[in-house]
């Protein structure tokens, strides 16, 4: 609209692609989709490049690195996943707890294999340039999702963590069983660091977690009478007499249920321009895709290409989620998992 002497004219503003994706993400996405592309310049069903590395050199038992045998690192197993620009490093550490000498009288009756599985406790840290801060909502949610997913996948049996061959280091077998009736078990923690976050992270975090688990080795445990001096700032800052101690060399591979190893994939659903067709986007990347794909499908498929988990979020009311779309998505997922795990 020009008024008066016609000096005022409305023109269009041009933005470079990255700025447009922040200012008007839906517009940016639409324009790309019309061309058959995505803002990250991949095709709709094209996944990001994925590199899995399990010999990261972080773990205690990554003996072949540098020709050194066992180091004194606390990491029992680790893995590094690189997908696109995002790097996820997962390190698994362990602790030993006394299994409470508490048992319920019905344990022998309703034993079912489902009760026999446990999970590990992950803490996710997404590096955003802030040095220290309380875990953000996203980190807390990811950690909880990882914990629950691993638990439901029935990958880690409780039995594998129970320590039942504690030897007495002093080779004195007489008092072995009677004195210390305490039973111990390992507890595993996972520390997952994410660098260069580009999109939804659950898939990579879960993948790195599962891969690390496959490399975890548990050290041998001994009873000991030794006393140690620890710099402890609490009142016991002096001599500590732990009853058990980890062997510095010997270890066992952690026994996991290899059959149930699975992989997670997240897809975004978005409508094309005339709203008639629903497009499935693999491996969401970038601000535009992440904010505009409100409808998501998350599938977890195991080695035998069986579905173990399905989560459909219909956040976008214009995208109608019906049987066809879900079946197509699951098929894409199965193909991808076949390539990764087999």
């Amino acid at each position, binding site marked *: 609209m020009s008024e008066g002497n016609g000096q005022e004219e409305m023109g269009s503003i041009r933005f470079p692609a990255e700025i447009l994706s922040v200012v008007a993400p839906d517009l940016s996405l639409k324009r790309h989709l019309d061309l058959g592309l995505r803002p990250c310049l991949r095709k709709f069903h094209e996944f990001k490049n994925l590199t899995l590395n399990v010999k990261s050199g972080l773990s205690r038992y990554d003996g072949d690195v540098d020709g050194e045998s066992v180091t004194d690192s606390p990491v029992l197993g680790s893995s590094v996943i690189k997908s696109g620009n995002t790097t996820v490093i997962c390190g698994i550490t362990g602790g030993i707890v006394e299994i*409470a000498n*508490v048992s319920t009288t019905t344990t022998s009756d309703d034993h079912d294999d489902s009760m026999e599985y446990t999970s590990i406790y992950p803490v996710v840290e997404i590096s955003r340039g802030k040095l220290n801060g309380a875990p953000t909502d996203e980190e807390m949610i990811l950690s909880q999702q990882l914990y629950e997913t691993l638990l439901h996948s029935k990958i880690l049996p409780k039995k594998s963590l129970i320590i039942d061959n504690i030897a007495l280091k002093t080779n004195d077998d007489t008092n072995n069983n009677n004195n210390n*009736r305490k039973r111990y078990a390992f507890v595993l923690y996972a520390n997952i660091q994410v660098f260069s976050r580009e999109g939804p992270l659950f898939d990579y975090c879960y993948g790195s977690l599962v891969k690390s688990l496959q490399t975890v080795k548990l050290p041998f445990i001994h009873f000991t009478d030794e006393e140690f001096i620890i710099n402890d700032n609490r009142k016991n800052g002096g001599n500590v007499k732990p009853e058990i101690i980890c062997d510095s060399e010997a270890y066992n591979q952690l026994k996991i249920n290899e059959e149930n190893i699975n992989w997670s994939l997240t897809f975004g659903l978005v409508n094309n321009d005339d709203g008639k067709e629903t497009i499935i986007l693999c491996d969401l990347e970038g601000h535009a895709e992440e904010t505009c794909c409100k409808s998501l499908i998350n599938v977890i498929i195991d080695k035998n290409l069986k579905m173990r988990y399905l989560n459909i979020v219909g956040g976008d009311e214009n995208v109608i989620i019906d049987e066809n779309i879900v079946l197509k998505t699951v098929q894409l997922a199965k193909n991808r998992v076949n390539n990764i795990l087999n």
Partner: protein
Amino acid sequence: MPKGIDVSNVAKDFELESLKQGLRLDGRKLNEFRDVEINIGNSYGSVDVKLGKTRIAVRISAEIVAPFEDRPFEGLFMINTEISPMASAMFESGRQSDEEILISRLIEKAVRRSNALDLESLCIIAGEKCWSIRADIHYLDYDGNFADISCIGVLCALLHFKKPDITINEHQEIIVHPINERVPVPLSILHIPICVTFAFFNPNDVEENIKGDSNAELIVVDPTMGEELLAYGSLTLTMNKNRELVQISKAGGLSIDAMVIMDCSNLAYEIACRITDQIREAIKADDAKRAEKRLEIRL
């Protein structure tokens, strides 16, 4: 940001005038405590209490843990008094408001420090294993006087709660028997402290109160939210049926004559007796109901 509720000057004057004439907005007399309604739930240690419109839910849970190193013969007891925005928009989630801190301290003194729950009875294996009892108070609706209702709720729930029976076998292992196998064991409650809160109003000017002789301060028992917002200070007395004063808390506010505290104590004692009886009645009625149910199942 959800702010505190502001009361208009008109409302303030109206309420003060009514109090001077011995009337309260909900029709009670100045020394009248609201009716307490106790609902006992299905599981042990689960109690809902209503004090007028104020409403809370209390849940007791038990866990076996290692005792503190410096107290190997005592169990653990903790009370959680987190107030959520459900009670009222003036409470923020995640941040402890001043109200919350005061209530938390009050309950701490009245219930924990007074040893209402005998901690030594919670010991299982000295220095190694003990019961840790946890009381979670969920504040559902706020109409004043969270302190008193919290105390009533926690005590009622503790009296109702039963922990599973345990046996220790020869290998020093603890076996916990499920509730349907062996009759669970009630907690050892040594006395029942009941908090009674009084709110003060100043009908005259500040100077009269400090320098003058007239002691015209108005004291009101069990303030509602409207009264709490207008009050100049409050006093909480905790007494039990043995006529023992468990704790007194008067945190600043309007200065009152010291003799008034004696009168308040007497009033508090009567109220404490009545409420203690009511709590015991409720527990007895629930026990009877459960016994009947067990008979029915057997028949």
